[in-house]
């Protein structure tokens, strides 16, 4: 009898150690093949997406439905009281609104001068819900409910609250995986608005609990960068679009090599309470093509 295949009644079974060996080889080969490429991603992502995503969407929808129903019951009484006070507020706000309209005109003029915010209003964007988050506790990765069928593609930038969230690192027909910039393995090339020196923003599990991310390799020989400065994505990156807000500098220190500076950034996005995100449909490469 062959040692690999034992005969048990009518069924053939493979001893577990051979199966383990075969699958170990398979996993190692898969890792080697997929670390830099996305060779098998298309069929696998599609198959897994069609099986798993409907469940996830259902469950998140049921969860949202349940929590909103329970909130409704609690809030009915409050709402009646609130309604009365809100009516008063409507009158006040109408007055305020006219004032604000005047201010908006002014804002538009200032924006034209500033030429920054308007830049990412030009991008085509699409909204998406977060349906699942990483099953592990190490990296900060989540899953959204739109995919290739909605026109999304790899490396598209994801924003929320006007700030950078991350980029798409995996995609199926009806889902996409977003690796956020606070994930420990993420690095973003950035610059400050005051100085033009580039810096690198790095996600860090250690500082995630404090709500800050690290930055480093800032040259800044003229000491132009100060606490509170806006940090935006730079032109250097081949994945991230330029001039998307990342956050504000919280602390800044000179490194021991006396050449560069590092410190912490408060991100513009509240990563803990993200529910909806916007995906920018323009890719960096496409935009460059269009400009050329």
């Amino acid at each position, binding site marked *: 009898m062959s040692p690999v295949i034992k005969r048990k009644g009518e069924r053939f*079974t*493979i*001893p*577990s*150690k051979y*199966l*383990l060996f075969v*699958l*170990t080889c*398979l*996993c*190692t*080969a*898969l*890792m080697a*093949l*997929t*670390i830099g490429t996305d060779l*098998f*991603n298309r069929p*696998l*992502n599609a198959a*897994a997406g069609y*099986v*798993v995503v409907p*469940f*996830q969407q259902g*469950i*998140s929808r049921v*969860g949202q439905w349940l929590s909103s129903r329970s909130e409704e019951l609690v809030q009915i009484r409050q709402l009646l009281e609130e309604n009365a006070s809100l009516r008063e507020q409507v009158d006040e706000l109408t007055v305020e609104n006219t004032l604000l309209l005047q201010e908006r005109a002014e804002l538009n003029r200032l924006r034209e001068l500033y030429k920054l915010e308007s830049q990412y209003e030009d991008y085509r964007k699409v909204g998406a819900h977060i*349906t*699942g*988050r*990483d*099953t*592990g*506790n*190490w*990296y900060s*990765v989540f*899953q959204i409910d739109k995919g290739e069928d909605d026109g999304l593609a790899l490396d598209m930038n994801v924003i929320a609250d006007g700030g950078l969230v991350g980029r798409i*690192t*995996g995609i199926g027909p009806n*889902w996409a*995986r977003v690796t956020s910039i606070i994930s*420990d*393995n993420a690095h973003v090339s950035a610059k400050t608005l005051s100085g033009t020196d580039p810096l690198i923003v790095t996600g860090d*599990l*250690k500082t*995630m*609990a404090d709500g800050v991310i690290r930055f480093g390799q800032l040259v800044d020989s003229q000491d132009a960068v100060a606490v509170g400065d806006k940090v935006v994505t730079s032109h250097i990156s081949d994945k991230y679009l330029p001039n998307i807000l990342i956050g504000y500098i919280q602390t800044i220190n000179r490194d021991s090599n006396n050449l560069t500076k590092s410190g912490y950034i408060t991100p513009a996005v509240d990563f*803990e309470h993200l529910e909806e995100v916007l995906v920018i449909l323009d890719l960096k490469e496409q935009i460059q093509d269009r400009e050329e």
Partner: protein
Amino acid sequence: MARKITVALLILMCFVLQSTVFRGLAFGGIVPNLLIVLTSSFGFMRGETEGLLVGFFSGLLCDIFFGEMLGFHALIFMYIGFLNGKFCHIFFPEDIRLPIALIVVSDLSYGMVCYVLMFLLRGKFDFPFYFKSVIFPEVIYTILVTCLLYPFILAVNVRLERAEKRRAQKFV
């Protein structure tokens, strides 16, 4: 066949719960590892082969949706399932201590392996911090969830075994 479908549904259920509902119930951003509970339960309840297969597919699901490359988690989960299968012959359904101990050790070693491969190799040496803030809380939370999930898995397995025995007798 009934067993295969049931186990596939269990894996799917644990994965979906872990990535949606338990993310909402996370304490300090830490989720319990249901897939480890499932993998190691099937390891010590059913033996090496089934443990490693359940582990492989659970891990593969994690890799497809959240991993950087395919096969990384599949490999870790597979070995956890296989090693748990070594304890199959001293497992009795009435005894709760062995399952709890095995699940704790499995989750702990999963955390360690993840730390070494994903953080230590990138030059992040502060092991006490990562142990305190990720590995240990995850183990504690996983034990709590095990108290609810394990009896369920056990009951499903007992039913399946009973059905299989009945079918075998019918054919004799």
